[in-house]
């Protein structure tokens, strides 16, 4: 009896069709799914270096530090009422619908802020799990920012050099923030739109 050999073409077709069939029925990673080793993500979640104090963020804002990008996860209305100059507003509810690649993987380290610690830290873990490791959280959120940077005063007879530098930075940022937030909403929106365009510009290419 002659054995009919299966041609290479048939074998490859079989391989590809069955592989595609498997893919069609398994829950593949859609737009955003966390991946990697959960133990590694846990290790990053427990890393204290992933949190910045409000003073550290204030120092970066005062110095115009371009190595960090503040991402404000509060609602748009809260953001327009009061925000840190230079921050980008991505409401937490729309975080996973936004273009995370251009937001979190294009240069500056992201610093998440929210009202308190919750949403910023949710976003932190999500970002880590999605492969965006260069991100941190401002500890305490805007509540802590207001308490420490915006409303704190020095009480005492003598001030050390370190405390002096600290309060100088706080006063400087306070003025910047108050000045920025005294602008009408339309100007703030325009300012943010311009920053968005600058942020999205590709490096190199035709332009």
């Amino acid at each position: 009896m002659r054995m009919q050999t299966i041609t290479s073409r048939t074998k490859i077709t079989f391989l590809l069709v069955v592989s595609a069939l498997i893919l069609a029925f398994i829950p593949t990673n859609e737009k955003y799914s966390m991946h990697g080793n959960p133990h590694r993500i846990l290790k990053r979640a427990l890393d204290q270096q992933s949190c910045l104090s409000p003073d550290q963020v204030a120092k970066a804002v005062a110095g115009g530090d371009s190595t960090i990008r503040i991402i404000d996860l509060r609602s748009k209305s809260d953001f327009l009422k009061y925000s840190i100059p230079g921050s980008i507003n991505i409401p937490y509810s729309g975080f996973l619908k936004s273009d995370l690649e251009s937001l979190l993987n294009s240069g500056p380290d992201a610093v998440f802020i929210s009202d308190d610690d919750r949403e910023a830290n949710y976003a932190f873990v999500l970002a880590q799990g999605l492969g965006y490791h260069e991100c941190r959280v401002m500890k305490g959120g805007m509540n802590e920012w207001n308490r420490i940077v915006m409303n704190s005063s020095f009480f005492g007879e003598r001030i050390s050099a370190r405390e002096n530098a600290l309060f100088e930075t706080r006063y400087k940022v306070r003025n910047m923030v108050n000045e920025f937030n005294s602008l009408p909403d339309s100007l703030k929106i325009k300012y943010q739109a311009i920053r968005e365009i600058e942020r999205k510009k590709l490096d190199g290419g035709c332009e």
Partner: protein
Amino acid sequence: MMKKMQTNEIFPGVLILLLGIAVLIKLINPNDFQPNAERWSSASFDGLNIIDAEEISENRGSFKIINLDNSSSDLSLESITIPASEILEKQNLKEIREFKGSIVLISEDKALTSRIWMLLSQMGIRNLYILE
């Protein structure tokens, strides 16, 4: 030659079988991240994952409280301590998954509870709450 022909013919089948086994192992592995991050984090969008002490007191039996950092709780209710660094140990995850009711995470550090909540939720653990 017959043997060589047969090997060549069954090679695609073997490859598919290996692929199928690898897919099956991943599908039934409970300690991995679930696809679609948005679905598993949806409770955090509206604060539905936050629970207060009153609700726990009313239905004590259906809650298991996990203390992530040995913090003192005002609840004066029983809680088990699982340090955050050990939350993914096999035994601990098994205990969390097998509990029929709801799990409540507590800690002095709000950031820690938020992070652990998100991590466990993305691994497919439902009925997980953070104490307000």
